[in-house]
């Protein structure tokens, strides 16, 4: 029996693109971002990549817990988030969108504190329009629709962006959330990052639909397929979806077709389900060189400029890690804090006992 090797992930031929594989504007395309915005985006992408490398190293040293890298999906995450106005729009993340959280106002040291294992790291600062990182896949989508509906009811012009993956889209919450969003015309943007795999389960086993975006029609929503490794294309479709939502025209499903170049998380072994050949092909589609080439083509970035950018990123991350590690260690009261606004007598009694026991040690 012969079979054709099918490489999972990557973008379909007809996915929306602005840049070619080398970062050159396609014929007839125009850049939706200024050079200044592009440099900002590139810095977020580079910061994300650097953070992934540092975080994996910290995890190997036992200094942080399990970590899920963004590696390979930087254009998809940063391009989407750039379409939002942090002063009025909200993000409901899953757990693979770290640069979006940072760009929206989450301090880097707080985020690292979360991975260090201190619950305080899970709290977005007051005023930052950000939900906690979501672990239960797709559970954040109904929340995003609810918040979007609440904003609309109160005449607030904010919109809500929520992220999920190809795997999460098989959950019932995905269906229920998109269905309600369609019915109530909620100002919400669903960014489905199709990165080829849900841990080891390939896209081809996740759904028989021709595309994830095609499902949008079933909810009365527009669905868009975009090359998720094309920063400019992702930004453009996200911007259009944000404009639609803000104009009262309702929700959009964006399928951002990208690829996870790194294992699912620090506990995963990608070699058990990804062939070296596939990985090699996908590495050739890395979104970072594509933006770098584009910026160099525009003449706004050179090797020296990027080296300076990299130095400032390294410094920023080192400072944030130092801040997180210098934070007061977690303590036993954190087991009990913020469970109830008004804790009841038994919980209070348990807290007192646990604190006494911990102090006695």
């Amino acid at each position, binding site marked *: 029996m012969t079979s054709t090797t099918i490489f999972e992930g990557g973008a379909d031929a007809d996915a929306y693109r602005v840049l070619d594989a080398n970062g050159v504007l396609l014929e007839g395309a125009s850049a939706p971002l200024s050079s200044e915005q592009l440099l900002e985006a590139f810095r977020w992408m580079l910061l994300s990549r650097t953070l992934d490398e540092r975080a994996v190293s910290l995890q190997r040293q036992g200094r942080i817990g399990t970590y899920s890298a963004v590696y390979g999906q930087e254009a998809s995450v940063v391009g989407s988030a750039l379409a939002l106005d942090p002063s009025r729009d909200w993000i*409901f993340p899953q757990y693979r969108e770290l640069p979006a959280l940072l760009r929206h106002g989450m301090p880097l040291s707080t985020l690292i504190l979360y991975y260090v294992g201190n*619950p*305080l790291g*899970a*709290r*977005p600062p*007051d005023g930052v329009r950000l*939900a*906690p990182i979501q672990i*239960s896949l797709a*559970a954040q*989508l*109904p*929340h*995003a*629709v*609810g*918040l*979007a*509906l*609440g*904003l609309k*009811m*109160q005449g*607030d012009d904010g919109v*809500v962006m929520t992220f999920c993956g190809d795997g999460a889209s098989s959950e*019932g*919450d995905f269906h*229920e*959330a998109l*269905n*309600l969003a369609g*019915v*109530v015309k909620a100002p919400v943007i669903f960014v489905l990052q199709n990165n080829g795999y849900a841990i080891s389960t390939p896209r081809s086993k996740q759904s028989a639909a021709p595309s994830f975006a095609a499902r949008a029609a079933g909810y009365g929503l527009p669905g868009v397929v975009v090359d998720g490794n094309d920063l400019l294309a992702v930004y453009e479709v996200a911007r259009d979806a944000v404009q639609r939502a803000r104009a009262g025209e309702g929700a959009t499903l964006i399928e951002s077709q990208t690829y996870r170049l790194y294992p699912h998380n620090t506990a995963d072994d990608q070699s058990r389900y990804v062939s070296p050949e596939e990985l090699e092909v996908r590495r050739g589609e890395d979104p970072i060189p594509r933006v770098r080439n584009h910026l160099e083509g525009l003449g706004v970035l050179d090797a020296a400029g990027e080296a300076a950018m990299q130095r400032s990123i390294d410094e920023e991350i080192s400072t944030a890690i130092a801040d997180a590690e210098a934070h007061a260690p977690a303590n036993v009261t954190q087991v009990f*804090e*913020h*469970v*109830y*606004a*008004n804790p*009841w*007598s*038994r*919980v209070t009694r348990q807290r007192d006992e646990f604190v006494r026991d911990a102090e006695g040690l």
Partner: protein
Amino acid sequence: MPVLTMVEAIRQALEQEMERDERVMILGEDVGRLGGVFRATDGLQRRFGEARVLDTPLAEAVIAGASVGLAMSGMVPVPEMQFLGFTHQAFHQIADQIARYRFRSQGRFSMQITIRAPFGGGVRTPEMHSDALEAQFIQSPGLKVVMPASAYDAKGLLLEAIRDPDPVLFCEPLRGYRLVKDEVPEGDYTVPFGKAKIVREGSDVTLVAWSAAVQLCLRTAERAAEEGISCRVLDLRTLVPLDVEALAQCAEDTGRVVVVHEAPYTGGFGAEVIATIQEEAFYSLEAPVARVAAPDTPYPIAGVEEWYIPNEERVLKALRRTVGTTGA
């Protein structure tokens, strides 16, 4: 003072609170145009509009899940689960998301949400409608579980629930919706959580119950009195928070306790009641604490439910055995 049925008291509480606080909204299946399958929200959509009394798609998880976002936006959602038996379709949103969102966000986001859900047997509903699932929600820290037994408590506890910054599962005994009638003040009042109520005085034994089982215990106590058994009836009103002191006091006062609930026997909240009593008042007990519950079998269809749910005979039998036991 006007006498209202329980469903009238609930409807009045919802209407008055929506009038008082414009952030309060209702969402769920058939809550708007129809006024709910039990009419608990009757007329509220006409009065407050389609946005604040929202007929949703038939999808329990998103009714609960959207309530999270609505609460974050500053609204005070009061979602209705058409039947408590359907909350399994939303269990992950209630137990993992709503209950622990405050904890997961370290206090940044309050889940001021009251999930209303009718439950309980005796009205020949189809399968999966009647199940008493309350104990399944007890192990969801962050969530409060409220189970009124009277019209007065239904209104007062519901107003307390809606105003509580913590999320509340508010279980309504559907058989009592029209059967239970008592005096309900027209004005605003709340019943605090965690305060059980002695609804009948007695000296030989305490019957501990909540929701519809309280009415069963009151009826049985009348019959027990004819046999010379004096029963106190303690209505827990809320399971979380639990009134530990009242349980201990009743065990000390009467020395004998029978706990009655509609949920299956093993792992029902009765087990928690008994464990609490033996921790707090072991040396006051004159007899083992007895349980009257449904058997450890699924809630059946209508033709056999009369054998399934606790009845006066089974409670009487437990009372006789408990009172007939003498301490060592």
